[in-house]
């Protein structure tokens, strides 16, 4: 099935992408062309097959609960778009 503009708007919202209708329409053709290739999977007999999320078995990796060397605060903040008093500065997220 092919994605509609309405679905594209919804997906852009879910993915936090500010895209207008013209941009979404331009993206639709390549996305739908690629998705047409997915359809062949629908024909496979997969009912009794276990899914693979990793090719090599991966188990929980535990370690001793010992404090390591943390990243110094100033280094952690060095790439911040805006920082002050040792904190990240972001737009206001609660109303006054």
């Amino acid at each position, binding site marked *: 099935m092919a994605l509609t503009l309405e679905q594209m708007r919804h997906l852009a919202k879910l993915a936090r992408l500010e895209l207008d209708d013209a941009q979404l329409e331009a993206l639709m053709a390549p996305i739908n062309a690629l998705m047409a290739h997915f359809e062949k*999977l*629908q024909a496979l007999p997969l009912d009794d097959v276990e899914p693979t999320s990793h090719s*090599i078995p991966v188990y929980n990796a535990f370690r001793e609960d010992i404090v390591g060397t943390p990243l110094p605060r100033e280094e952690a903040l060095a790439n911040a778009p805006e920082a002050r008093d040792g904190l990240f500065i972001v737009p206001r997220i609660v109303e006054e």
Partner: protein
Amino acid sequence: MALHTLSLSVLSEKLRRREISATELTEAVVSHIERTEPQIGAFITLTPELARQMAKEADARLAEGEWNPLLGIPMAIKDNISTRGVRTTCASRILENYVPPYDATVVARLKQAGAVIVGKANMDEFAMGGSTEYSAFHPTRNPRDLERVPGGSSGGSAAAVASDMAVAALGSDTGGSIRQPAAYCGVVGLKPTYGRVSRYGLIAYASSLDQIGPITKTVEDCALVLQVIAGKDPMDATSVDVPVPDYREALRPDVKGLRLGVPKEFFEGVHPEVAQRVQEAIAALEEAGAEVREVSIPMAEQGLAMYYILAPAECSSNLARYDGVRYGLRVGAEKGHIGMMEATRAQGFGKEVIQRIIIGTYALSSGYYDAYYLKAQKGRTLLRQEFERVFQEVDVLVCPTAPTPPFKLGELVDDPVAMKLMDVLTIPVNLAGLPGLSVPCGLAEGLPVGLQIIGKPFDEPTVLRVGYTWEQIREAPSQTP
């Protein structure tokens, strides 16, 4: 011969014998970069001063009698591998000014060995692409033909090695991004077994498929770099605690009795001259004593469809971290926190990345998860089982790395499907987590062809041995292939 043109193994022998210094070698490479880079565009960031400093340190270690194969060797690092204090952009506007506060484990290991970092190599943005044309900064040209792409996504790493601007390089491979550019540029590239090399500090694209590996001039060089970067790392829970063998011991020109499987599906739709070069290499290996038999992996044909659900799904999740808050680009802070995230992401990501985020978001969204993501994961199980079955009959698989010779810049950049078909022979290897090596294998239409050698999990030694044997046959003066 000019120093920068020599292989890693030859140079490290010269360093060991103190015939040359690391500084001399680094100066040769740096000045070659100054002359050559304007034509190729293999790098996003050059680090000549860092390289000189590292070379000086290597010389001090050599003077004290220390030696290992990478000590003093100039290398390029793909720009999605974190380097402390050196800008790491992932070829994206969203990370254009990002300077990592830590080293990737592979980089820490290279530094410990004493390798010299000459620069950060160009790539497709977030490693999504097969031509390096999706770099947000500039394309890279194929050193063998400047009108053509170097492949991708590790196109800068492969082009740097092919044009002698680095003695060796690190790339990353999610669906063929080391092997395909290595094939296109006529150099050697290895995607190790999933879990063989730590991914800590590799900027994530699709975490269940990503793997770092070497791009080098020879198979021997490839073994020497792998030796340093392979091994369990507590910082990467998916790195596997399997002993690291001595890869140099695998470098014997001997394939007698080895069973080579030729997967017939991997020759379908392949450019006839590419197929012919690969068949000639297989015939030469048979002549050298290998047993060759045809095998079948029918699910491989479904690999592309599985990959383009699984990789975008993982990418949509991994790339959620770019929100303009803690690092990277920030746009539209006046729009509130959600508006800022939406504006930052839309402006910071390129078109190809946005496409994959949307596809991945769709594949993971409620109501479609079972139809797409779960189906692809189940298909992956069947594909893995087919490889397992075939590897009961054969020791390695041999086939082309890419279905065609390198294409021209601009030729496929706007075709959503054709460029992705270039990964059709490499993607199944990532889905199954297997090691895959690409070794130069003659020319088609005058352009490089890659022979792909696929092995059992953690059997890099046999893969390298077959590659090494083929390299010896190819280089032997009495032979013609």
